């Protein structure tokens, strides 16, 4: 049985992580299959951002196993991990003030073919096209978020790590980002989405992992979400 299951695209197993002396992740495990959209849900401070930072290799103090299509990457430096095909969109967005919108968009190097062309990206985010010559940080919060997502679509990375892309944005913008993620899934991208807003997540994801105090404590298929709504509310404290 198990031996017929395909290798997951991303498998995190028993992940521990630290900031200095502070031990933040405690044996966190989850997996993502090719083409899936999976969310990490959890309260503030549960360790979702830390998990993404550990996967992409920004957080060096980590132990356990992270494998990408069966290949162990926990010893790799973050530039090597990115080049294996992971695109990272940080919670703080990380738009560069000294770069124009166009330069921000073209910054991440193309690592393999199959990424979106600039035309495709502008079709997804028409606002960006009008503002290519602006300074990156002169954009509105919503536009900066779109830029942060857009720039990792060119590179050919097939696994995207998106950290709270809807945080602090107006409902119309959230809707546009939702449509975009939906379109990316349709195009075959695999996405790990960190969210606080599970109503947003429920429209997009195949499965939801609940993170609590540095561990994955539960998992729901999206189809069973309604049935488990009380449990979910308890986990998220809403």
């Amino acid at each position, binding site marked *: 049985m198990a031996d017929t299951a395909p290798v997951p695209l991303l498998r995190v197993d028993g992940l521990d992580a630290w900031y200095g002396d502070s031990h933040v992740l405690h044996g966190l495990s989850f997996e993502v299959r090719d083409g899936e959209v999976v969310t990490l849900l959890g309260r503030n401070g549960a360790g979702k951002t830390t998990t993404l930072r550990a996967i*992409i*290799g*920004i957080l060096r103090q980590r132990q356990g196993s992270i494998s990408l299509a069966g290949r162990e990457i926990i010893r790799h*430096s*973050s*530039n090597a*991990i*990115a*080049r294996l095909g992971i695109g*990272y969109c*940080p919670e703080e967005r*990380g738009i*560069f*003030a*000294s*770069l124009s919108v166009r*330069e921000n968009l*073209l*910054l*991440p*190097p193309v*690592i393999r073919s199959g990424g979106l062309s600039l035309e495709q990206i502008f079709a997804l985010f028409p606002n960006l096209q009008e503002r290519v010559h602006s300074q990156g940080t002169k954009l509105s919060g919503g536009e900066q978020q779109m830029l942060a997502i857009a720039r*990792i679509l060119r*590179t050919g990375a097939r696994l995207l790590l998106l950290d709270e892309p809807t945080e602090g944005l107006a409902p119309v913008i959230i809707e546009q980002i939702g449509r975009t993620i939906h379109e990316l899934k349709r195009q075959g991208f695999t996405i790990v989405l960190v969210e606080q807003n599970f109503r947003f997540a429920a429209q997009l994801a195949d499965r939801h992992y609940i993170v609590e105090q540095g561990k994955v404590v539960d998992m729901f298929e999206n189809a069973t979400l309604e049935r488990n709504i009380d449990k979910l509310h308890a986990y998220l404290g809403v």
Partner: protein
Amino acid sequence: MFTILGIPSQALFGQLLLGLINGSFYALLSLGLAIIFGLLNVINFAHGAQYMMGAFLTWMLLSYFGIGYWWALLLVPILVGIFGLLLERLLISRLHHLDHLYGLLLTFGLALIIQGAFRIQYGVSGLPYGIPVTLAGGQNLGFMFLPNYRLWVILLSLSVCLATWLLIEKTKLGAYLRAATENPTLVQAFGINVPRLITLTYGGGVALAALAGVMAAPIYSVNPNMGADMIITVFAVVVIGGMGSIAGSIVTGFALGLIEGLTKLLYPEASSTVIFIIMAIVLLLKPAGLFGRRV
């Protein structure tokens, strides 16, 4: 001959020219310092020693190998730049996770060692280096005599500064550099080898210092202290222009050279201090420097 503000034109233009020459060196040297500081957060105290190495290597190439000025202009920045790459890889990179005071102390120590080594070997009296024959002589402009070599130094410095500015502001490599100056962690998470970028940047900054050294060899006497004398003024230029500002260090370098030259004419007693007086005023009014960003 005519007079301007009661100053004979000959003297005025002579001092302005001298100011532009000094400004050419200030600009090249502070540019290298600014680039290095921007990305490495290291105040490269060895910059003056690397400039001096450039001048010495120029002299050595000619004296020991018969290799002249034009080849030196190409070879010396490459050789001293490689020395810089090694320094960064072997020593400076090890301090990267520490406070940038450590980098300053390390490069300060390196400067003392390098200068000491040259002093032991060559003494302090200074070695002569002739102006390349193609650039001997000068132009009589009527109101003043313009030596060809000095004109060349100004033009070369201007072009190198402009090319460096274009490289940083208009190219892909420059975009990597600017982005990594802001947020190296994220740039690396996009797949760019930031440690290698840092090494190359240091090497590039050092190569600029060495290039200034080659240009200086025929003008100033080649001696182990030439960098130490120059670098104090250049640090003042960098502070006035704003730490890490590329355009700022170029403009400030030339401007302060000119101001220094004019002061020599109008109030010679202050000519060696005017830059530091300006630095004090700028620090009081605009602590980040005239073109400074954050910090």
